[in-house]
């Protein structure tokens, strides 16, 4: 649910990084925040525990500048991945325009990924949305670790809707901007279709 203001000439869209705990959602935002020029980004807000686990959400606003006279902004959010923060995850999804589902590629996290994907669908439903109506991409993260499942294996199990999928090493920035570009374009495409 984007906010389009014809008077102040602004378009604001909400993109959410969803996925299981310790999968790399916050790492994606931190990398984007570190690398993107100051004139494009706003202040990053993190509501985290003392051990830097996301408690409520991270927030990073990005601004495209003027596109056909409209200041176009993407507000990036992460949800807390840990299972017991489900109530918070549901709240963050309100008004979502696009989702990046971040997968932890390690074999031992496979069930957690599947559970998180199902949980996302349930929480979308609770907000009155259907995943079918929301642009989303998948990011297979931590590709540098030794015990990862193959891209094909993961994609077959998780990418049921055949959406764009990317391999990443978020901590080193590999695949982070490819993912961001893909979801931003899908969100804009959805807006222009209406």
């Amino acid at each position: 649910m984007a906010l389009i203001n014809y008077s102040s000439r602004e378009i604001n869209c909400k993109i959410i990084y969803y996925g299981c705990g310790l999968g790399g959602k916050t790492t994606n935002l931190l990398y984007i925040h570190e690398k993107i020029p100051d004139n494009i980004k706003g202040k990053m807000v993190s509501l985290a525990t003392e051990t830097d686990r996301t408690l409520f959400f991270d927030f990073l606003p990005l601004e495209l500048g003027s596109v056909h006279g409209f200041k176009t902004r993407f507000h990036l959010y992460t949800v807390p991945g840990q299972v017991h923060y489900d109530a918070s995850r549901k709240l963050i999804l309100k008004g979502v325009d696009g989702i990046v589902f971040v997968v932890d590629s390690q074999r031992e996290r496979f069930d957690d990924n599947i559970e998180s994907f199902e949980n996302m669908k349930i929480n979308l439903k609770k907000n009155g949305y259907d995943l079918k109506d929301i642009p989303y991409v998948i990011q297979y993260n931590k590709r540098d670790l030794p015990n990862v499942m193959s891209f094909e294996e993961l994609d077959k199990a998780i990418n049921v809707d055949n959406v764009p999928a990317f391999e990443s090493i978020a901590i080193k920035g590999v695949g982070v901007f490819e993912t961001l570009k893909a979801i931003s374009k899908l969100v804009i495409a959805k807006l222009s279709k209406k």
Partner: protein
Amino acid sequence: MVEPNLIMFEDDYTKVNQILTRLLEESSSKFVLLVDRSGQMISIQGETETIDSMAFATLSAGNYAATSELAKIIGEREFSVLFHQGESESIHISIVAKRIILVVVFDNRTTLGLVRLRVKKAIEDLTPVFNSIFEKVAVEEGEEAIDTKFQTSAEEEIDKLFRE
């Protein structure tokens, strides 16, 4: 999607800003802002030079969302008003037309009583404006500016800016 995009046109936006400016003046507050429940800032008026308004809007929405869930857990539908009192600065949060959050930040130049009184009047004025905005959105899903040309330009900007 169940909830459509929130689209503001010139005349509605002017009306909203007039009401906010009046609230700001009559309540002697520091600044007032309107945020939708998903955290998107609609408008802000007052002394805002030193604050990060985008972060403020997002956190206000998060705060309201969390408190509403607390209300549900104890059997309330929601708390219609939230109030955070500081030593010199305080925050008053209330809901307009079910979807919009009105935040007033004030200091010792005024009183909670006066803020409450003026907020009540502002909500009365804002409610029909937003109800009419929601109705329009449902009918029109405003499409003028966001066409394929816009999409192409936006994609170019994305490629140009979203990189290392």
